[in-house]
């Protein structure tokens, strides 16, 4: 990707990764991603904000050279993760006078991961500033978006906020600024669900701080730049709030179609009662899509057969992941079929200890469900609809 002008003397110098389809060996990237890096040419000093993935660091170096950067004074690191920091050693080597500017915790993590020398750091704490001549940068600590060291950088005079991964989206697009707002918001929701959601309780405070700054532009490290940031800020308010929606996620896996029949009956029963249902077959599921549906749901139902004497491993995997992501779901239940016995209900619920949920009565059936078992599923649907109604959701 060639450099792209954001405003006078402000350039996007990162790279678009059209091909990447998996992040962290975990997260599907159906739309690819980008590693956004920004060059600020102040009247006195030149600064780079974040880098790129080390696999594409040459693009960043070439972009800086093509913009005539002979002297680079500062590399601002808002986040120590390697897809942004991994190119910093190459930049430090190419511009030997440059210094890494970041907070003490981020400096520690950059040292841990990249073995950067201590003498190449300038440390800035919360609220401290750095002059580029006609421009002033101010740094705000924002821990756990999504690592402990994360910070925002505020370009005061231009009202541009660089938020690192916060508010970002995994999207490879030729749009420098968001032009497909619905598409970007959906990508940002996927990103929020997969990366940010475990730390959502801190976000209202950060969003208040951002509102106080009233940025004209928010530039993240992944995805297109927000030149009309109101909608992404509003979306993050909603996602990170404690408000849930009239939605039940039914996550199921089945070996001989028995549990699938139970899940199917429950899904229809929930629809009949006015509950919106999001269904995921856990075999081959895109975990990002599952995570997206966990963002707003009031209820999650886990449907699995007993394999041996425990849950199907696909159900255990999804439950473990949900426990890591800590969605704000309020109710959960386990249903399934078994041949001879087992402790699946206890084991699946044991994987969900981080969730602040009320556990509804399970529906476990030996063999293929009979009429009274389907009635029990209707009863579970009644309970779920009743809970949603009591919450004022339905």
């Amino acid at each position, binding site marked *: 990707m060639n450099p792209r002008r954001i405003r006078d003397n402000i350039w996007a110098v990162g790279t678009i990764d059209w091909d990447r389809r998996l992040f962290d060996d975990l997260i599907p990237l159906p739309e690819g991603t980008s590693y956004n890096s920004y060059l600020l040419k102040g009247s006195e000093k030149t600064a780079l904000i974040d880098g790129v993935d080390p696999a594409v660091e040459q693009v960043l170096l070439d972009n800086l050279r093509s913009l005539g950067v002979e002297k680079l004074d500062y590399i601002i690191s808002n986040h120590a993760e390697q897809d942004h920091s991994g190119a910093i050693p190459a930049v430090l080597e190419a511009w030997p006078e440059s210094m890494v500017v970041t907070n003490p*915790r981020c400096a520690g993590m950059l040292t841990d991961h990249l073995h950067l020398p201590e003498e190449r750091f300038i440390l800035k704490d919360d609220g401290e500033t750095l002059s580029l001549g006609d421009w002033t940068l101010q740094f705000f600590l924002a821990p*756990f978006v999504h690592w*402990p060291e994360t910070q925002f950088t505020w370009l005061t005079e231009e009202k541009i906020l660089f938020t690192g991964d916060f508010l970002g989206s995994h999207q490879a697009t030729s749009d420098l600024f968001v032009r497909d707002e619905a598409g970007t918001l959906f990508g940002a929701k996927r990103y929020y669900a997969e990366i940010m959601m475990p730390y959502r*309780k*801190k976000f209202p405070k950060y969003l208040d701080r951002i509102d106080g700054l009233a940025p004209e532009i928010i530039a993240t490290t992944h995805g297109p730049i927000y030149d009309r940031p109101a909608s992404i800020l509003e979306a993050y308010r909603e996602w990170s709030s404690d408000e849930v929606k009239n939605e039940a996620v039914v996550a199921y896996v089945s070996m001989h179609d028995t549990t699938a029949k139970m899940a199917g009956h429950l899904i229809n029963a929930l629809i009949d009662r006015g509950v919106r249902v999001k269904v995921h077959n856990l075999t081959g599921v895109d975990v990002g899509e599952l995570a997206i549906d966990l963002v707003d749901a009031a209820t999650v139902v886990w449907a699995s057969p007993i394999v041996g004497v425990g849950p199907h491993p696909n159900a255990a995997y999804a439950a473990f992941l949900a426990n890591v992501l800590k969605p704000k779901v309020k109710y959960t239940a386990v249903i399934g079929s078994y041949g001879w016995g087992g402790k699946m209900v206890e084991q699946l619920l044991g994987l969900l200890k981080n969730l602040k949920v009320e556990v509804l009565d399970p529906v476990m059936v030996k063999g293929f469900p009979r009429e009274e078992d389907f009635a029990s599923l209707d009863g579970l649907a009644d309970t779920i609809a009743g809970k949603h109604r009591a919450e004022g959701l339905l």
Partner: protein
Amino acid sequence: MHKWICMACDYIYDPEAGDPDSGIPPGTPFEDIPADWICPNCGVGKDLFEPYG
């Protein structure tokens, strides 16, 4: 005495209760907990706690 919250997992250290399972008796202020103490819920170090409330 002040409570402290784990920034990683939201565990709250209450000095009134201490963390007896980790050998921290009730009544121990957060500042007096040994440096090698870790969050009993998620395992991160003391440096990732911040004052709560």
